[in-house]
């Protein structure tokens, strides 16, 4: 087996606050292989974006990585000195943010921003970098790139700006792209274009993609595997067809049940009762237990660890056969 591009082991991220330390990410582990798209899905506040930001080393104080390790193609990057981490960012890991309208500096031409990034990471002359910038703009599907390169961000539409952002993220041929809700701020028709663009780039360059979103539709369309996050942990992770068709974790079941279908018989969408706990009030045991219809005594005291189940992995006591047998 080849080494995964990204390997996250038992990641813990904490935020110091006035009322004590809040643990936003609590023991998250996953791998992404070359050319693979991992979708990360969950409610707001589940820790999806924080996971993405900690991989690229952009957790702002008072947040910090409190434990675990992150490896990029074998190289441990969570404890790199700032200057070396900077060299990894943009060169080996590209990042795409949610809002393309605010991701670009309004005072600089888009071409200058791309050239600046290229020349930070690659040893190219000004003209060569500019030529590369034009090629990149063409690759992400911007018409007449040799003309648009001298435009300012406000002269581009939202979808076009997100394409520029993607061009910026891939300009040094990164091994990994982290896309944090890349389509949330766009309208639906543009969303589909951006998704297929990210998918195509991943395929053409063999880039691993970590796609953070709360949109199951986007995940189903794009991802090879999906991780369902809940309250700072991964509830379930596995191949996308399996998780969508046959979710194991009660929370994942609830999520899939909440997706409307076109073929829909006229039945009500399933709703998960209650809401995700705040970080300051995560219950003991399984963090989902107060909302779970299947919760039993053990769920209220013992925090479940991920258990392999075919190609999937699920953090739920319902699937702990060995323990269940030993109890029985």
């Amino acid at each position, binding site marked *: 087996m080849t080494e995964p591009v990204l390997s996250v082991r038992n990641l813990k991220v904490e935020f110091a606050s006035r009322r004590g330390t809040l643990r936003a990410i609590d023991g998250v582990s996953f791998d992404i292989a070359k050319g693979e798209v991992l979708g990360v899905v969950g409610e707001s506040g589940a820790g999806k974006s924080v996971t993405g930001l900690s991989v*690229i080393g*952009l957790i702002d104080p008072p947040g910090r990585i409190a434990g675990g390790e992150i490896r990029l193609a074998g190289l441990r990057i969570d404890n790199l000195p700032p200057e070396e981490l*900077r*060299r*990894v*960012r*943009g*060169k080996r890991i*590209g*990042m795409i*943010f949610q*809002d393309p309208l*605010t*991701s*670009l*500096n*309004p*005072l*600089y*031409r888009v071409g200058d921003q791309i050239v*600046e*990034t290229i020349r*930070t*990471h690659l040893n190219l002359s000004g003209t060569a970098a500019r030529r590369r910038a034009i090629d990149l703009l063409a690759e992400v599907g911007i018409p007449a790139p040799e003309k648009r390169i001298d435009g*300012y961000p*406000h*002269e581009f539409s939202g979808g076009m700006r997100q394409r520029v*952002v993607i061009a*910026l*993220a891939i300009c*040094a041929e990164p091994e990994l792209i982290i896309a944090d809700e890349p389509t949330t701020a766009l309208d639906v028709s543009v969303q589909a274009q951006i998704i297929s663009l990210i998918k195509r780039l991943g395929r053409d360059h063999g880039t691993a993609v970590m796609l953070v979103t709360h949109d199951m539709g986007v995940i189903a369309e794009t991802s090879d595997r999906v991780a369902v996050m809940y309250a700072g942990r991964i509830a379930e992770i596995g191949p996308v067809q399996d998780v969508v068709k046959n979710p194991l974790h009660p929370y994942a079941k609830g999520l899939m049940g909440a997706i409307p279908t076109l073929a829909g018989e006229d039945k009500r969408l399933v709703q998960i009762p209650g809401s995700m706990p705040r970080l300051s009030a995560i219950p003991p045991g399984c963090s989902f237990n107060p909302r779970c219809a299947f919760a039993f005594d053990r769920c209220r005291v013992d925090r479940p660890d991920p258990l392999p189940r075919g190609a999937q992995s699920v953090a739920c006591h319902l699937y702990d056969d060995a323990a269940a047998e030993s109890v029985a």
Partner: protein
Amino acid sequence: MLAFTLRRAIQAIGVMFAVGIIAFSMFRFAGDPVNQIVSIDTPAAEREAVRKSLGLDDPVPVQFVRYFADAAQFKFGVSYQFRQPVSALLMERMPATLELAICATVFAMVLGILMGVYSALRRDTFLAKLFQAVSLIGISLPTFLIGILLIYLFAVTLGWLPSFGRGEVVRLGWWTTGLLTLSGLKALIMPSITLGLFQMTLIMRLVRAEMLEVLRTDYIRFARARGLTTRAIHFGHALKNTLIPVITVAGLQFGSVIAFSIITETVFQWPGMGLLFVQAVQNVDIPIMAAYLLMVSLIFVTINLVVDILYTVVDPRLRSTVGRAA
């Protein structure tokens, strides 16, 4: 762009017209100017002659048009106390005031921006906190007090700097400058600091607040995600965005630096327009007061115009909206 500039220029002329009306009405409401010129025992016939020679017996609208036409050519009449044309007096005093105002503004801008950027980037250092504390003093202490304290320390106690005047000046055409002689430069230091301290603290606090704001924006986060160097992010991306509001404030402040140099000029006996104005107030020398009012508003209006145009140079978004609106 041209249409935008033209429209702003027309607005500026409108403002100047309004100020002109106010300046003119000062002559009508601040007592009879003839009384200021003649002595108490001047016979009535002679008073009438003076009145006629000054054109003060004409109907008010005629006087106004004449005043305005003259003012447009920088003729502001004759000073009551000096018996000299006001424009000559102002021209003679203007270099001193402008030199002081420019030095004060440069001092305020350079130090204000440096200190502001530093205290935004190194928020928790001792020096940054010291700047914050000092800036509170700069904002709250009145100008004259700062001037007097500086004089006490550097002129009276230490004897390093002169306490009043401009020192030796060099004549360059009609302009006189103190920048080319040692005594002139030394004389500039304290008045510049006194006049610029308030603006410096203002700019520093503004730059700090703006910079902190900009550093939180998405495009700065994205710039970090792109792996740009810290220097490129702070001084290329953040500082340029910070400077947009700073330009406005600094521009407008330059106007008030000139207008409020009155106090500094009085404290340091600086031979500029402000001192001339204070003397004019004491002697009810209305032509000088009116001319000063007009000059100061002209400077304000011009600076506003320049600031508006500068905006479009810095911010490309305005360039296109301005173009579209025009």
